[in-house]
């Protein structure tokens, strides 16, 4: 167990807990965007910024990534933390002004209209899709392409069609609607601005409804070692 102070409360939490988790336990809410409790934290949106005081030195950090340490003091609503959140929200809003989710988060944080202009994009590189595909679905259809000294590219999310099974988890988890999914006439399309993949949906032998992408069912069948005809009938008719 580790003892620390959050907003003047002395609390004890398990070692390895993040500040965000610790705060949550004591009903202190911190805004988040790129965080999901079932995924590895990333620290990309920086909306969860808090002030921490370690050995008398005050610094900012992201609550979702920082594991608590003995004796630290966390201030979730200090001037410094709130200002940093406002800056982060302003930048995100400038990048993606149409997203309802970002608009409401920004408002909550106190930003109505950004002062700055940048090229607008619907993807904010939060990598929720990347992490979901890898950690939940067990595929790696989406990867983050970072820029760097020897990678002179625009940072982006890269899509490998061969790896995609059409489950649509990325579309569910995407906060800005940059990844979308549509089912129509026996096909499903998963798509974003610069990529798409079409899937044939499986028809139930009993009710005749299209119910899931064939590739996804094949993937599950392989993983669970199910008989070849297992998915011929949809769960409703089984």
């Amino acid at each position, binding site marked *: 167990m580790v003892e620390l102070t959050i907003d003047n409360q002395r609390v004890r939490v398990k070692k390895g807990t993040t500040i965000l988790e610790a705060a949550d336990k004591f009903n202190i809410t911190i805004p988040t965007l790129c965080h999901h409790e079932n995924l590895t934290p*990333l*620290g*990309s*949106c*920086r909306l969860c*910024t808090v002030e*921490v005081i*370690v050995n008398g*030195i005050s*610094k*900012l*950090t*992201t609550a979702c990534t*920082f*594991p608590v*340490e003995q004796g630290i003091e966390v201030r979730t609503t200090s001037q*410094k933390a709130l*200002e*940093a959140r406002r*800056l*982060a929200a302003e*930048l*995100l809003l*400038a*990048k993606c002004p149409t997203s309802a989710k970002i608009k409401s988060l920004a408002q909550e944080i106190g930003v109505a209209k950004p*002062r*700055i202009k*940048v090229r607008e994009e619907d993807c*904010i*590189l939060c990598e929720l899709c990347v992490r979901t595909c*890898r950690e939940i679905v067990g595929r*790696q259809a989406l*990867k*983050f*392409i*970072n*820029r*760097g*000294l*020897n*990678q*002179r590219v*625009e*940072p*982006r999310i890269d899509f490998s069609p061969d790896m995609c099974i059409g489950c649509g988890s990325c579309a569910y988890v995407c906060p800005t609607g940059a990844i979308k999914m549509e089912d129509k006439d026996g096909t499903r399309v998963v798509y974003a601005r610069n990529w798409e993949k079409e899937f044939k949906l499986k028809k139930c032998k009993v009710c005749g409804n299209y119910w899931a992408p064939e590739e996804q069912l094949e993937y599950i069948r392989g993983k669970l070692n199910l008989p070849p005809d297992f998915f011929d009938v949809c769960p409703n008719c089984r």
Partner: protein
Amino acid sequence: MGKVVFSSWAGKTVDNRGLGVKQHAYAEDLGLPSGYDHTKVAAFMGWDGFVVWDEKVNVVDMAHAYIKEVQKVCCGECMVGYIGITVLADTLARILDGKGREKDISLLQWLASGIKENAGCTFGQTAPIPIIDSIKYYRDEYLKLIKNKKAVPKSNYKVMVTAPCMEACPAHLDIPGYIQLIRNQRYRESLSLIRNGVCLPGVIGRVCTAPCEEACRRTQYDGRVCIRLLKRYVADWEMNSGLTPSSAKPRKSKEKVAIIGAGPAGLACSYNLALKGYQVTIFEELSVAGGMAAVGIPQYRLPRKILERDIELIEKAGVEIRLNTKIGRDLEMEGLWKDGYKAIFIAIGAHKGRKMGAEGEDNDYEGFVDGMKFLRDVNLGRVIEPKNRVLVVGGGDVAVDCARSCLRLGFRDVNIVYRRSRVEMPARKAEIEEAEKEGVKISYLVTPTKILARDGKVIGAECVKMALGEPDSSGRRRPIPIKGSEFVMKAAMIIPAIGQQPDLSFLPDRNQIKLAKQMTIETDTTTCQTSGEGIFAGGDCVTGPAVLIDALASGNRAAQSIDQYIRKGKVTQGEDSKLEIAVKGINLSEQREQEIVPREMPQITSQLPLKKRFGNFREVENGFNAEAALEEAKRCLRCYRVMVWLPAK
């Protein structure tokens, strides 16, 4: 002359603008290397501030040139850094174009401070610092540009990007870059980045001395990033997945290059030249390629199949290796010119064992075996009959390798004798510790003076005890024999391993190629040129016994020079090495503000259990698994340092 107009570096400012009283400040006073003065540089900006020597320099222009480079490196993994730096660059460009507004200054200030406080990595947190300084100290210049509403010309700044670890690596690998690719599970790209500077990733991932790790900034918090093991992880991943790297088809050139010696230096040079399209042939004396990596380093540290795979990929890139061909015996060096080779790279290493200076060492006693020969025999699988007691003489890695090999061969009582004390012992600490764990005994402050033999067979050595005197030229305390302390150590085998030197007997005309005092080949260290026309040299035969990464780095440099030599007929110092010289001496670890780093200890790997290490040469160290590699990769702070400067007119 210490003429400086303005300096704000590492939190210290010197301001001589428009003052009657001038503070003279030398580069050293500013925290910069002594090469930095107004005769060479007009202005300089980097992660910890900026300096102006020429008052005509437009600081806003410099800030823009700087932030453009920062933007190219900014990874995009945190939005404050990614979007924020983009806006900084756009805003500075606007001001220079004469379209700035007064409120842009406060915008820049707000953003730059915000990024500094809250970007996701060290690079993001330090990069905006000179921008903040420039606004603080050169606000008038900003205002002037904004009021004039006229576009001003942009100067051409020179750029250097590095990191403490990258600078410490002789091959200057893009370490934060390949680590980040591992974190994003893009192993293939990570490995191809590594191969840009290291053509033996599997080998280097195992036995590199890793000077990068010593320079790693994370050491000041909880422990270095395990850079070497991360490299090993991707190399092993590729091998275990049965993949071959997608090397771009090299363009074909008719020009031929000869390389003497298939050690790391020769291999690195050949690989780079082959990628440039040259027809490269390596002539190798032994029946195996790899140099000391094949016949020196024992397999329990470097399994043969790892080396073989790395070499196979070099051959796939188009390099021909002619084994069992010794230059000076099977072919003459002079003949290579007649065969149409346009340049020669000498990379013959240092294989000749030095003499101990003990009586009887030249008597060819049975049981007296030079360390190099011993390890070669071990590595080539020649039968060595284990004896009861063996003395290994020396304190370097070679001695430790000999001793640990002896144990694996079944020698029962393995002893190292070293003439100085533990502190001076040059072998790596971890190696010494493993050796002791395995049962090697080390006698310090002892030197054999006479080899004792009966019927031509070694039975022991007469030794003398030593005391330490004043430091010698190497900085270590000089061992001095203690009179009357002679004693006898019994042994059935003695292995001297006290250092090697190159065997240069094959060189045709000694006057043509200049040698240095230590009987090594003299070269220009940046270009690898010898005094002989069209002849280059690198690796251990130039430096004396060094380490793999030095040999690889010199092979890389030689390839660049040879390419220039063949294309242009002469070698000019590459742009890269000029930049390298320019940053030499800057303390890359320093930064004004320390980051807060949550304590996450380095990942550890398992080792082959002690009792399984005898009677075989199985690899001792295990690599990371995927999870450990990912966790370790996350520990990198990304300490990229961007610098721009304007040369003086």
